[in-house]
């Protein structure tokens, strides 16, 4: 057995990017107020993961006859979720067979008048949008880790569906991914 078959590939998701895959891969990303929706099909090990910076925008997402790639799709939780679900549908997998996990949305809760108010609103709205999509698409949400004042580094192992999560202090998050804090 060659080394390529025993060592899963690694992918780092920048904010606004997303991943869909058919082979075992370790997908890693760092989240502040952005959210990652992770989708996994246990029977086939097909998997997808987004890194949405913003909640949604008005956009038509096409039909069941194909997969539409929206402009700046990965930036928006709504568009990236539609794309990932369409990809699973094209693979013949219905929503009810998918496991969904939701991460991120830091600073969901902050008292009115605080200086972080705009960041708070984005984290909270990202999570609300993801939950609305999950509910509308009747997905099974099996785990989540959202809110709190900390960032998160997550590792999604697509061969098993496992997600490992590491909390980051704000200074650590600044070092790892300075852009993400400003943008999301």
């Amino acid at each position, binding site marked *: 057995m060659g080394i390529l078959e025993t060592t899963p590939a690694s992918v780092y998701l920048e904010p606004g990017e997303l991943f869909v895959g058919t082979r075992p891969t370790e997908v890693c990303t760092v989240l502040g107020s952005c959210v990652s929706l992770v989708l996994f099909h246990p029977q086939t090990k097909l998997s997808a993961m987004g890194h949405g910076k913003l909640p949604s925008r008005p956009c038509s997402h096409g039909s069941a006859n194909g997969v539409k790639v929206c402009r700046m799709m990965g930036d928006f939780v709504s568009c990236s979720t539609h794309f990932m679900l369409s990809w699973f549908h094209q693979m013949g997998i219905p*929503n*009810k067979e998918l*496991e*969904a996990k*939701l991460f991120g949305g830091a600073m*969901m*809760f*902050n*008292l*009115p008048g605080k200086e972080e108010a705009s960041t708070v609103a984005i984290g*909270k709205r990202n*999570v*609300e949008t993801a*939950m*609305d999509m*999950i*509910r509308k698409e*009747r*997905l*099974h*949400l*099996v*785990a*989540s*880790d*959202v*809110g*709190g*004042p900390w960032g998160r580094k997550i590792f999604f192992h697509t061969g098993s569906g496992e997600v490992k999560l590491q909390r980051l202090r704000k200074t650590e998050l600044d070092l790892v991914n300075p852009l993400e804090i400003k943008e999301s």
Partner: protein
Amino acid sequence: MLTEFEEDAIKEMFNLSLGNALPTLSEMVDAEIEFSTPCLETTPAKQLTQTITSMVGESACLLHMVFRLMMTNKADLPGNAVLLLRADSLGPFLDALYGEPVPQALQDQVCAEALTDVADLLLYTCISTLSRLLDSELEGNKPLFFRGKPTLWNRSCPMEPNSDVPNAPNENNADAHSITLRIDLSIPIKHVSGSVMIWLDASHDTDLKQAVQHYITTQLC
């Protein structure tokens, strides 16, 4: 009537479901959560508010999600999930969520929205796991917030008439009864206590029996 084994199976499903959902809450309040083993009762619908009153007294804070599990080739299984907090837990719970003391003057302003977000994640994750155990599709509304006397709750939180999901247990229907599942939880370090309850419509208990038998044959045997 469910057999003792079927009742045990439902309790186990609820235990697994809430056990899967509680880490979500634990992370949000950044504290350990203790929870009881599940208990199950068959309750006439008209006694549900009395049950809540006996648990929390005359002042309750509850988040109510109506859901339906859509089984393949079987009848749908309607139900209700509730996160119930004692009134004196509300302030400490908000403090835990916000990571700092929430002034009394701001509590009313933030509590409905914050608790709805928390209950949405907690109850939806719990019901999702239940749905997966039963190989069903899930439909559930966003939780509705209620604060006040439990006896006023059903009238205060009606579902919209055009809602796709079933209504809360109908207290006016003398024949309606529910399987009530309950787990008490506490966050000792934050001085918060409450319960998560699920009511499954048992008026047509053959549907519920079929669902439980499906779980027993596919997961336990």
